[in-house]
C-alpha cells in the first residue's frame, strides 16, 4: 500500500499540462487525407489506366471501386478508434470494417456472376500482389507509427485493421492503374493477398503496438 502511495506521489509530481489526443474521427480524417494524397501521387507517377473512362461506365467496376473506398474509410475510422484504450467508447463504429467487407464480398460475388463471358486472364499473376504490397508499405508503416503514439488495448485488431487500411490504398491504386477486367484475377491476386496481410497484421499489431 505504501508503494502505491509513493508511486502516486511520484506520478503526480511528474505531471504537467497534457495536450489531449485529437478525436478519432479527426485522426481518421487526417489519415484518409494523407493516404488519398499518397494515392494521387502514386497515380501521377504510374499513370491511370487508359480505359478508365470507359470502365467508369461499367456499373460493376464503379461498384467495386465504391466498395473499396468504403473499406478504405471504414478501416481508417476503425484503426483510429482502436488506437484508444476504450475505443473512444464507440465500440460499434470500431466494427464498421466488418460491414464494409460483407458489402465488398457481395459486390465481388455479383461482379463475378455478371462477368459473362469471363474477361480474359492477364498474363501476369503474383506481380500484382507485389505491386500492391510495395505501394501499401509506406501507408502501413506510417499508420502503425502514428498508432504507437496512442494506447491501444486491442493491439492485434489494431494492427490488422491498420494493414487492411494500407492495403486498401494499394488495391485502389492498382485497380485504377492496371488494365485488367478479370474478376478472377482481381480476387486471386489483389484481394485474397490483402486478406492474408490483414491476418498477418494480427501478429504485427501485437509486436508493434505493445506499450
Amino acid at each position, binding site marked *: 500500500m505504501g508503494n502505491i502511495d509513493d508511486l502516486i506521489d511520484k*506520478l*503526480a509530481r511528474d*505531471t504537467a499540462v497534457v495536450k489531449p489526443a485529437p478525436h478519432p474521427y479527426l485522426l481518421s480524417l487526417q489519415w484518409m487525407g494523407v493516404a488519398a494524397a499518397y494515392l494521387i501521387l502514386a497515380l501521377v507517377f504510374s499513370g491511370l489506366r487508359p480505359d478508365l473512362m470507359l470502365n467508369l461506365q461499367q456499373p460493376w467496376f464503379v461498384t467495386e471501386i465504391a466498395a473499396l473506398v468504403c473499406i478504405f474509410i471504414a478501416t481508417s475510422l476503425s484503426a483510429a478508434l482502436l488506437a484508444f484504450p476504450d475505443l473512444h*467508447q464507440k465500440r460499434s463504429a470500431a466494427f464498421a470494417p466488418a460491414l464494409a467487407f460483407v458489402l465488398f464480398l457481395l459486390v465481388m460475388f455479383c461482379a463475378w456472376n455478371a462477368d459473362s463471358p469471363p474477361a480474359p486472364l492477364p498474363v501476369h499473376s503474383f506481380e500484382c500482389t507485389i505491386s500492391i504490397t510495395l505501394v501499401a508499405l509506406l501507408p502501413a508503416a506510417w499508420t502503425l507509427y502514428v498508432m504507437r503514439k*496512442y*494506447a491501444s488495448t486491442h493491439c492485434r485488431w489494431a494492427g490488422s485493421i491498420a494493414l487492411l487500411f494500407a492495403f486498401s490504398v494499394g488495391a485502389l491504386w492498382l485497380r485504377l492503374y492496371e488494365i485488367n477486367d478479370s474478376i478472377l484475377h482481381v480476387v486471386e491476386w489483389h484481394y485474397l493477398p490483402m486478406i492474408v496481410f490483414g491476418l498477418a497484421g494480427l501478429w504485427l499489431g501485437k509486436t508493434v503496438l505493445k506499450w
Partner: protein
Amino acid sequence: MKSYIINMFVTENTDNFEALMILSLNGDQRAYASLLKETSRLLRPFLAKRLSFTNEVDDLLQEILISIHKARHTYDGKRPYKPWVYAIARFRLQDYLRAHYSDQLRQALDLSEVEESLPEYVTETAISYESIRREVQKLPAKQATILQLMHEEGYTAKEVAVKMGMNESAVKVAAHRAYKILRKKLEK
C-alpha cells in the same frame, strides 16, 4: 480565487473522476494525485476478485497506474472516465495473467526431460501371464486348483467350495494364502 474554489470542490468530490481528470490534464498535481488514489480504490476490488494474492494485486495496480499515466493523453474528459480506466485495467490484467501462466508453463518440467533419470520404465513390468501361470503350478495342489478354477474358469468361491467339497471360507482362506505366496515370489 474562483478557480481555487472550483478546484477545491472538485478535489473534495472524489466521485467526479471526469472533472479530476480535466484538472489533471491541465497540470493540477493535487487533482491528479486524488484521481490516482480514487482510481486505485476503484480498481482494487476489481483486481482482488481476479487474483489470489495481495502482493499480486499491489504489483498489478502499480502497473495500471503507470499505464494510466502513460495513456492519459488519450482521455479528453468529454466521455465517462470509468470505461476508459477499466479498459486499461483489463488490458494490463490480461497481460499479467498471460505472462503468469506462460511462466508457469516454462517452469513446468516436460516428462521427456526427466525420462532418462527415471530408474526404469515405470509402466512396464517383468510379470507376464506365463510367469504367473508357472508360479501357480508350483503352488500346493489344492491352492493351485482353487486359483485355476477361480481365475481361469471363472468360478466363484462358493462354486469352487461345492466342487471341491470344502466350505466357502476355507476356499477363501486357501486362495488368500496362495496370493501371498505368489506375491512374494513375483516380487523377487
